[in-house]
């Protein structure tokens, strides 16, 4: 293909792509390998956003480092591409500074559960209002296929050249135990289910965790002689069983073994901010001004205050800084 033809193709691609509304098309093509599952998850995310009817201006995406870390740079939302493992605390700050946002974290297994493992369990513990999507391909793809905390025992990785002798994390179990209020797992073959789960997560409050098992064709598949992306899909098709509500203690993953998928946990619990507001309202009483009210809630409250009183309402300066600009 010569350059001119390639540029034309790109231009056409950009104009006509159904994802153009969701992606920064000027940044296409992306860096992901053929057969990689990250793109499927991003597509499902875009579908879920479309179906949710949420205001796209109020959705923010935060990611860390690695192949999945690149998601933040490709999606057309307010987005922060941060440091390795730190997507969740950055997302936490973003959400708390502007609670009207729906904040979505995209992270790989190494980023989220190795270097970022501490943040993961603490955000789950606090029931921080975040949607955390983990693209789990059992390896560090960007840096050449090293072992991660989810690499199945016996699997080969560049840092376990004789096979992995460690015990992996079972992420749904970890999330559940740490306090996550929504936990689901799918394979990247289950595009509709992923979309549905992300949709549910976007429309609920609290710490929602969605794990998607995906193939890293270039490294994990190849190094373990598991074939290409299609072979991975065949494996998911043959060996993944949907078991909604499964006890998360039973969903651990073994090398090329049976995979349990489904929605494992869906429970209600006050989010971090709900807990802050409820607690302060209880102990401080009427003097406490709820933190992070939406502009509509603020107005409603002011109207209520004004009812029967001639005084002008006090302006609230918590989050709305535009008027000061």
């Amino acid at each position, binding site marked *: 293909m010569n350059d001119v033809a390639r540029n034309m193709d790109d231009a056409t691609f950009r104009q006509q792509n159904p994802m153009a509304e969701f992606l920064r098309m000027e940044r296409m093509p992306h860096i992901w390998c053929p057969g990689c599952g990250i793109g499927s998850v991003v597509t499902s995310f875009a579908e879920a956003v479309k179906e949710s009817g949420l205001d796209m201006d109020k959705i923010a995406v935060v990611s860390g480092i690695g192949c999945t870390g690149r998601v933040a740079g490709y999606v057309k939302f307010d987005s922060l591409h941060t440091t390795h493992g730190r997507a969740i605390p950055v997302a936490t700050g*973003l959400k708390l500074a502007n609670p009207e946002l729906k904040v979505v974290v995209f992270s790989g297994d190494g980023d989220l559960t190795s270097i970022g493992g501490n943040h993961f369990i603490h955000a789950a513990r606090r029931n921080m209002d975040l949607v955390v999507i983990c693209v789990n391909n059992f390896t560090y793809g960007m840096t050449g296929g090293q072992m991660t905390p989810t690499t199945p025992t016996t699997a080969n990785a560049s840092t376990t050249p004789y096979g992995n002798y460690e015990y992996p994390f079972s992420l749904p179990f970890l999330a559940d135990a740490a306090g996550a209020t929504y936990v689901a797992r799918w394979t990247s073959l289950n595009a509709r289910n992923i979309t549905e789960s992300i949709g549910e997560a976007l429309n609920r409050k609290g710490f929602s965790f969605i794990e998607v098992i995906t193939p890293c064709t270039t490294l994990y598949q190849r190094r373990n002689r598991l074939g290409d992306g299609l072979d991975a899909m065949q494996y998911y098709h043959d060996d993944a069983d949907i078991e909604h509500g499964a006890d998360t203690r039973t969903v651990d993953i073994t090398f090329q073994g049976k995979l349990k998928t489904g929605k494992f946990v869906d429970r209600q619990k006050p989010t971090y901010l709900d807990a802050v507001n409820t607690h302060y309202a209880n102990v401080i009483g009427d003097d406490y001004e709820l933190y992070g009210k939406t502009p509509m809630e603020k107005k409603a409250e002011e109207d209520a205050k004004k009812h029967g009183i001639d005084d002008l309402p006090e302006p609230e300066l918590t989050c709305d800084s535009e008027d000061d600009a």
Partner: protein
Amino acid sequence: MSQLPHKVTADPKGVESGPHFMDGDHALAEGALAAGCRFFAGYPITPSTETAERFAERCPSVGGLFIQMEDEIASIAALIGGAWGGQKVMTVTSGPGFSLMMENIGLAVMTETPMVIANVQRGGPSTGLPTLTAQQDMMQARWGSHGDYRAISLVPDSPQECFDLAIEAFNLSETYRVPVFIMTDETVGHMHEKVVIPPADQIEVVERNWYKGPKGEYRPYQFTGKDVAPMVKAGDGHRFHVTGLTHDERGYPALTPEQNVKVVSHLINKIDSNVDKISRVEEDGIEGADVVVVSYGITSRIAIRAVQEARKSGLKVGVLRLITVWPLCENKIRELAGKIKGFVVPEINYGQIVLEIERCAAGKCKVISVNSCGGAVHDPEEILTAIKEAAK
């Protein structure tokens, strides 16, 4: 494109006007609140914890939020999110926590995210002397995160100045979109003195420079090396992107040596070309002096005592107190070096800022380091001895 900092007076809700008998740590929190900071993420560490405690106590009544994060890495990460969520943000720590923050200080520098980080210094290395004073992290404030960059460091010498410089730190941070460090120490942090908090209408606060242009055209960066692009906050519909990677004006990764030159030289020059506006020093008796004592923070108070003694014995001694340590007032040091016999540089470390003074003096005069390796302030006698030596 350049827009002057938008100055307003403080929101009275955050200002506890009046005289107080207060320690430096508490004064830092009060200064932050007066400056309009309403988001604090931190992790407890001696001797800085009182700042976090004060902020946590004051938050509910001023519409702010305090969150105790799982560690210092998470704390500064949350500040980056908080700043792009539209808030003025702060954390406070000490040596071990400052070390943990270093990587994301780099992210804040690279993404040009305003924030204030106070380091109430204690003796190191490692866990060192958790409850005792030091000034051992001064070079870490300059070079601690990897890569070439500039940040700003202010050093208060009293609880009053903790309050005053907290406000200034926020103002500088907003003006230059850069992390600003308040490099105080255990002595000042835990020392109680009178702190006068002025009425809100007498406190000048720099508001964030908000982007006012149309949606779809926002550029988070401009690589002028002089001033910085306005900011937006997530949720306003500008769909910004920021990354720790070398990036273009749109914030998109642009991984070439040419782009790195643009970005890094901007990060450095936006501070270096404004040193005169940023740098603050306090001078006394510099004119005609044979010896100039250069010091900062608590050490400068001890140094003045030594200077008073030296002057009694007829020595001509000047005092140069660095309120802004980074960027250093290099030109002033160079100019003085040609006129005096020597500098005396007392620090509660094994000799850090003295290296910079030596570099600027470039052999034109003596430079005498007065070390105190952490745990205690100097005995004024040691400084006096060095002054006499420098005056020879």
